[in-house]
Every structure is written in structure tokens, then in C-alpha cells.
């Protein structure tokens, strides 16, 4: 296709961001909403035109306008899904900030639109250094969003976010330079099939791991996340949880696994160990939180741990499951942060004990909150169930122990989420001001309803989301096959039975008719 759709998806929010800097509050809101909706339309167009089962890299664009690296864009199914997630969440973020942000609106909208540019850029970049530039540049708008429009302790949180993630990613740059020097190209599709020596892979893998583990975030480098989440404005939390955390997982899929298969196998135990600790530890921490945003932040760490474990299972189920958890978590945790934001806007506190019995005065809100709580727990029929089930099935092929520990995460997840829901929505209405809060207004409906629809769609018919990624994940598995660890569960595939399991023989059927 000659139409440079990816470049336009980058250019539209960029132009809108620059415009917002010079506009008044209300105009800036309209411009930002318009630009993000336009980008969503372009995203739908992108998905509609994506040729499932076609070439691995589609919508490829390339221009040699820089020295040392090129402006090369292109997406595969994995990137497509993550771009869709970004463009889907973005208009919702703008809506979430509609009334909540009153100071320096133009600059705020500009920062968000810039975030959108950078996120799409990260997923679409086909050049190693272009990827790095987009990846790292995200620090700037996020630092400002937390620092200018955040809560009381915003300065500490913004510093921590910035320095943590910067320290993580600079070593990756050196590793990239080494790889480019060795392989003689900055082109990601070429590098995906370049075999680095196993000894070098070890070091390269560790350098990339330092970056992605912080972004992910994995235990024990997750501590920036609760601080950043708690202090960021609602929309900031949504973007942070919805898309930015996915950068780490995307990095593992795009770089660590296919470029360093041997090293990935070598360090799989490390990832498993950290993931197991994370699932149990952060779930327990989430259980005792008084602050709603902190609770959801810790639950994000636990969910992301299932993603990392699934990725390093080295099989199709694990990786597909990890991708589905990422997409599902992007929607669900984003929606949960919106739910928190909605009541925060009314009462200006995130303390759980200040609420209670909201299902009485805010029944519609309580319904949405319930749906997203259940999705977060992984109830069948919601997006997270599909992902978690697939991921755990993949992990089971490799290690029973890891599966066992990770599954506790789901039980603990049910515990902390249902406990949260009970304290917020059920029980007596202890606080009068909380009891007087009004139910959802149309703007909030417009934010929550699309996410709810997407969550159910992903839970009921995940094929729409799995189909574009299937071929790319199969390619990835083929690439990993030579290093894949042998599983301990020794699954044996038996000969298929003649009939389906619910088949009833005709003779018996006649007898049963008596």
C-alpha cells in the first residue's frame, strides 16, 4: 500500500500536540479529542487493511533521512494489536481528563498527544535506533504529566520514574550499538534472523533485560510503578498501565526472545523465579493496600509477571497467552483506573475506607466496576481469562511448579479484587458525602462502555485478536525451537478419538429413550 498510514498516524497527533500548546483550554480539549479519534479511525483502517496470513511486515515505509539509522516503519500482527490498544485508549484518556484537569490544559493535552506519537512509534519502528529514540523519548511527556498534574508527592514519584527507567535503558543502547556493529545493520527484521554467538547473547540479553524488566516492571525493580501510578493523574495512570507497561513485554517479544534465543533459554529460570516471586509477593501486598490506585498498581505487577512467565515458556500457547494478557490487562487495568478516577473526581480521595455502599447510590457505576473487577480476576467470558488460561497452559508445558505458583496469583487476585469491590461498592453507606455522589454522567458512560464492550468481545471471541498475531507467533516459536527447554510435564499427545467427547452411540441412545 502506497498510502503512508503509519507516518500519518504519527503526524496527526504530533501536529495536534504542537497546536494544543498555543490553544486555550476548551479548544485544546476539542483538538486533542478530535486528533485521537481521527487516529482511532486510522487505526481501524489499519486493522481492516491488515492482511492476515500475508507478508510478515506490512505497511512498510522507509526513508534514509538520518545518518546511522533510517526512518523505517512497518508492523506485524503483534505490533498491530498493541497499536490498536494505544489508539483505543487515547481518546478515553482525553475524556477522562476533560473536567479533572483545569490548569495548563493545552500543555497537558500536548503531552498526551506526544505520548501517543511515541507509543505508536515504538510499536511501528523497524529500525533499532529509531525504536530506541521513541522508547526513551516517552520519559519526557510522562515526567511532565506526573510532575505537573500529579498528586501531593508528585515530585518524588516523577524523579523516581524518570531515573529508574533511564538507568534501565541506557545499557540497552550500548548493547544495540554492539549488535549493529557486529551485524552491520540497524534493520530489525534482518537482526531478528541474525545469529549472535551464545557467549555474546548472554551479555546482550542482560542489557536488554535491564531495560525491559524495569519497564515491565518485574520484581524487584517494580517499586517505581506504585509511586508513579498513585501520583499521576487518572489519564496518566491509564496510559501508564494500559500501554507503557506493554513496552517491556513488547521488547521481550521483539528483541530478547528472537534475537537471543540461547540466552533466553539460559535465563528462563531467572525470569520464572522473578515472576513467581512477583505473583505471590505483589498479590499479598495488594491485599493490604488502603489506597485504591496502589492496589491496582500492585495487581498490574502481578499480571505482568504472568506475562513474562508466559513469554519464556517458549511455546505458542505461552506467547499467545502473554499477548492476550497484555491486551486484556491494558483494557482492564485502564478501566479500573478510570473507575477510581470517577469517584476520585467526586470525593478527592483514593482511600478505600472513605467509600462504601456505592452500589446503592451509583448502581450503573457499580455494574461497570463489577465487570472490570471480574475481568481482572479472570472470569471466563472476559478478556483476561483467555490470556491467563493460555499463558498458564503454555507454562505448564515447561514447568508444573511455575504454573502452580502462578495460579495462586489468580486466587490471590480474586481475593484482593473482590475484597476491594466489597469495601467500595457493598456494605453500609458509612460516609455521607460518599453516599451523596451522583451516578455516571454521559461523558463517563462514553469512557467506560467502549472498554466494557472490548473486554467482553475479547473474552467471548478472542479469535479476532489472535488471528493477526498467529503467524507471527508461529514464526517466533520456530525461531525459538532450537533453544526451547524440555518441559517437565512430558505431555503425550494420544491418538485422537474417533468421535467427539459428547458423542452418544446410537444403540445407547435408543435404550435411553425408554
Amino acid at each position, binding site marked *: 500500500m502506497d498510502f503512508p498510514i503509519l507516518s500519518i498516524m504519527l503526524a496527526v497527533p504530533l501536529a495536534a500536540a504542537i497546536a494544543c500548546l498555543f490553544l486555550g483550554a476548551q479548544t485544546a480539549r476539542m483538538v486533542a479529542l478530535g486528533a485521537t479519534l481521527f487516529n482511532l479511525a486510522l487505526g481501524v483502517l489499519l486493522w481492516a487493511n491488515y492482511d492476515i496470513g500475508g507478508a510478515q511486515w506490512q505497511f512498510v515505509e522507509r526513508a534514509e533521512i538520518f545518518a546511522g539509522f533510517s526512518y523505517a516503519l512497518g508492523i506485524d500482527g503483534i505490533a498491530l494489536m498493541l497499536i490498536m490498544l494505544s489508539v483505543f485508549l487515547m481518546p478515553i484518556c482525553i475524556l477522562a481528563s476533560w473536567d479533572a484537569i483545569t490548569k495548563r490544559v493545552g500543555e497537558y493535552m500536548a503531552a498526551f498527544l506526544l505520548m501517543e506519537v511515541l507509543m505508536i512509534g515504538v510499536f511501528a519502528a523497524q529500525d533499532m535506533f529509531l525504536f530506541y529514540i521513541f522508547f526513551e523519548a516517552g520519559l519526557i511527556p510522562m515526567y511532565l504529566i506526573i*510532575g505537573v498534574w500529579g498528586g501531593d508527592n508528585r515530585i518524588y514519584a*516523577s524523579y523516581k520514574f524518570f531515573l529508574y527507567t*533511564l538507568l534501565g535503558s541506557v545499557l540497552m543502547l550500548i548493547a544495540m550499538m554492539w549488535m549493529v556493529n557486529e551485524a552491520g545493520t540497524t534493520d530489525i527484521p534482518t537482526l531478528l534472523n541474525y545469529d549472535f554467538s551464545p557467549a555474546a547473547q548472554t551479555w546482550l540479553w542482560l542489557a536488554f533485560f535491564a531495560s525491559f524488566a524495569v519497564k515491565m516492571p518485574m520484581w524487584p525493580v517494580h517499586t517505581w510503578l506504585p509511586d508513579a501510578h498513585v501520583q499521576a493523574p487518572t489519564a496518566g495512570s491509564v496510559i501508564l498501565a494500559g500501554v507503557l507497561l506493554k513496552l517491556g513485554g513488547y521488547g521481550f517479544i521483539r528483541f530478547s526472545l528472537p534475537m537471543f534465543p540461547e540466552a533466553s533459554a539460559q535465563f528462563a529460570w531467572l525470569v520464572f523465579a522473578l515472576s513467581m516471586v512477583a505473583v505471590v509477593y505483589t498479590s499479598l501486598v495488594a491485599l493490604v493496600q488502603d489506597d485504591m490506585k496502589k492496589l491496582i498498581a500492585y495487581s498490574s505487577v502481578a499480571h505482568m509477571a504472568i506475562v513474562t512467565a508466559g513469554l519464556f515458556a517458549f511455546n505458542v500457547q505461552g506467547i499467545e497467552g502473554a499477548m492476550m494478557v497484555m491486551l486484556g490487562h491494558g483494557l482492564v487495568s485502564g478501566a479500573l483506573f478510570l473507575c477510581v478516577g470517577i469517584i476520585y473526581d467526586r470525593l478527592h480521595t483514593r482511600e478505600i475506607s472513605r467509600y462504601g455502599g456505592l452500589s446503592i447510590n451509583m448502581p450503573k457505576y457499580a455494574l461497570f466496576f463489577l465487570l472490570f473487577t471480574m475481568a481482572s480476576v479472570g472470569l471466563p467470558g472476559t478478556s483476561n481469562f483467555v490470556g491467563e488460561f493460555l499463558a498458564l497452559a503454555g507454562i505448564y508445558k515447561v514447568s508444573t511448579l511455575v504454573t502452580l505458583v502462578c495460579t495462586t496469583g489468580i486466587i490471590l487476585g480474586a481475593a484482593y479484587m473482590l475484597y476491594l469491590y466489597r469495601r467500595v461498592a457493598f456494605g453500609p453507606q458509612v460516609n455521607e458525602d460518599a453516599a451523596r455522589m451522583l451516578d455516571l454522567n454521559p461523558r463517563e458512560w462514553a469512557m467506560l462502555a467502549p472498554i466494557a464492550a472490548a473486554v467482553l468481545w475479547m473474552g467471548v471471541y478472542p479469535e479476532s485478536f489472535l488471528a493477526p498475531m498467529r503467524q507471527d507467533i508461529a514464526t517466533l516459536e520456530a525461531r525459538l525451537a532450537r533453544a526451547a527447554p524440555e518441559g517437565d510435564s512430558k505431555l503425550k499427545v494420544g491418538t485422537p478419538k474417533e468421535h467427539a467427547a459428547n458423542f452418544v452411540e446410537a444403540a445407547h441412545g435408543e435404550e435411553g429413550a425408554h
Partner: protein
Amino acid sequence: MSYASSLYFTGTEVGLSIAGLVLLLVSAWGGARTARLVTILTAAALFGAAIFCANLFGLASGEIAGRAFGDLYRADAFGSFAKILIYVAAAAILMVTPRYFAHTATYRPEYPVLMLFNAVGMGMMVSATDLMTLYIGLEMSSLSSYVLASFLKQDTRSSEAGLKYFVLGALASGIILYGVSLIYGFTGSTNYEGIRAAFAMQFSTGALIGVVFVLAGMAFKVSAVPFHMWTPDVYEGAPTPVTAFFATAPKVAAMAMLVRMAMDPFAGEVGAWRQIVIFAALASIVVGALGAIGQQNLKRLLAYSSINNVGFMLIGLAAATPAGVAGVMTYLAIYVAMTIGSFTALLMLRDRAGNQLETFADISGLSTSRPTLAWCLLALMFSLAGIPPLFGFWGKFVVFQAAVQADMIALAAIGIAASVIGAFYYIKFIKVMFFDEPTREVEMESPVGHWVVLGVCVALVSPLGYFLTIPLGEWSARAASVFALAM
């Protein structure tokens, strides 16, 4: 080698010297009222010299090209590149200078004339291929710098800065001179080619000591750790435009002089000087970053920032390859734009009465009182911190890439990890401007000249700068190719 070609290749130095002498006479007879005229003419002369250098740079520079006066001096692509930076930086700073002194009515026409002589000295530093020529250029530049530092002679801080700079600078010159005498004693030559030939035959311990002394003195001139102690004091005390000047043009000259020295006469003895440069690089990055953390004065902070930046440049030099030298030159070009921009923004910060603001407390909440200025400073600070997509990242990128290509992975990894420490105080700068509440009334208007300089610098460090990567890379590579022949 005719006399005419020698004069042609030294055209910028000759031309600027004549301009300096004439303008000195003008200022002597005309008095203080000619200050504006002399400033404009000086800036014009500097721009003219830069254009002349650009022309020289465009000419093919082979083995013989550019040599003047029996190989005392070489106007090659490397020298021309550095000189363009020096002249343009000096001219840009002249554009934002007079207003600073106007408030106290202390501006005099001698100021631009001193800058002109300084530029002549710096031109000689980067082009000299003989230790004697080098020393004359170095002293010419240094002596005018000492006077410039103490230009506000009623102000004790300025006088103190000048005196400190003079005492320590003289010490450094002495160290260089001692090293030069040792090198001459052991090689029997002051010419770069002669020294390299003599080193190739025998590199004795005495010569090694000479090399170490020369490098130590040069480390002082570029303010690399452990010879950096003068920098914060002098930068803080000197008038702000002079500080801006010190942080750019003489830094380029000293760095280019150091690169030429390391890559030409000492090119055969990379093993001897590389470890010194590596130590200085890492120490500069770390000390420059840690020292800045507690600072309240912005000029002092930028002084540490310049120490920090020198560390990154030295990483490119430590690679000791043409790519490394090209990296240093690219870094210098970007560094000059970032530094001039930062200091111009600092010069635009005044309170209602016209006093300069120069501490963190003064700029708090700047983003609400002067948003455009604050956004410009934001771009400059993120650029100095090396965060993409700002162009400062590219400077770090090229030097680290050169180090990686030279197989110095550990150096690159430690250097880049230490750069995170530096990021802390740059983002503190942004925190104070954007996250804190305004505490002071600031002047709302700035002259157009300042905006032009600031606008150009910010445009260069903004992501638009990446469109320059191809030409900048070509020019740097051409400048560095001078040494490819030597290696």
C-alpha cells in the same frame, strides 16, 4: 610552498588580527561611545572569518594542503571545522552581550576587541602543528580570557574569578611548557611530524613524562577532572556572557588542540595516553554529575555540566579512531548550540528592576510566568541530559558508538550508566521551572537579538536537528579524515 599560500592559509588569523588592531585604535580614540559600532564590526569580522573557513573546508585537503610557514601551521579540514564553531560561537555571544553590561553602564569597546584577539589565539591553537606556535596561540587566548573574566572590575566576584583563572591558568601553561621542553629534549623537534617520527623510533620514559605533562596541562584547559577545580569558581564569578563564551569557544579550541595533539604527534603512542584519557573521561562524567547536584547557582551548575560534557567528548577521543574524532567534532558542534542556548536563556532571566537572576529559587515556576522561555530551557536541559528525541542525544550517541566500534564496551557501559547521575540535576532544573510555584516577579520582555540566538539554538537541539545528522556526519568525518592519513 610560496609565501602567498602561507598567507592565504593563515588568512583568518591575519585578517582577524588586523581587524583587532584597527578596532583597538577606534576604541582608543572613540572612547566608550564606539562600543556598539565596535561590537557590530567584531561580529561581522568573526562571521567573515567563519565564511572564509567554510570556504577552506570545502577545498580538498590532501597531505600538503593547508600547510603554512614551513609546517608550523595547518589550515586543514579539522582546523577549519573547529574554527567555524569557534567564530560562530563568539559572534553569537557578542550578540547577546551588550545588554548585560548596559544595566551597570560598564560596557566598553575593549570587550569585543579582546574577544577578537582571543579568537585569533584560538584559531592558532586548533591549527598549530608546532609546539611553539601552539604555545603562542594558547597564551594569546588565555591572556585575553583572564582579562575578560575580570571585566567587571568593580565587582569582587568578577575580579576574583579573573585572578583565580590567571593563577591556575598560568600554572597549567607552565605544566604544558615543561612537558613541551621534555618532548623537545627527547625528540629534538617541536614539529608534530618530527615528534611522531622520533617517537616511532624510540619512546623513552622521559618522553612519556613529557606527554603526560602536556596532557595534564591540556586537561586543565578543557577543564577535565582532576584539573577542573577552577571551572565552577570562574564560571560563577565571571560576567554571564563571558561565562557563556568560556563554556563554548575556548572549550572547542582546547578540545580540538587536545585531539590534534593526541592524534597527530602522539598517534603512535595510543597506549601511552589512552588510559589517561579514559580516566579523565570517566572522572569528568562522574564528578561533573555529582558536583552539580547540590548547586543552587545556575552558572555554577552549568559549569559542572560543562565538565560532565567534556567527559563524554573524551570518550570519543579515547576510542582513538577517525570515527572517535568525528564523534568528538559532532559532539562539540551540538554542545556549542546547547550551551549558547542555555546561557542566552539565562541572560534573558531578569527581575523587573533589570537584575540578573541566577539561582534555582529565582526560576521557580518559570513555566507560568514565561512559558516560551521555560519550554526552550526544557528542550535545552533534556538535550544536555542526552534524552532522545532531542539532539543532545545524538552527540552522546556518536561518541559511544565510536567507543563500541573500537571495542571499548566497558568504557561505554560505565560512561553511559554514569550519565544517568547527570540526568538528575537536569531534570531538577525542569522540576523547578515546571513543578514549583512562582516566587519572583520576572521581566516579561526580552530583546529580539536574544530570541534569535535562543531560537536558532533550540531549533538545532530540537528533533529537527536530526535532519542535520547526514551533513554533520559528513563534515565531521571529513574533519577527522585528516588523521586517518596519519594513522
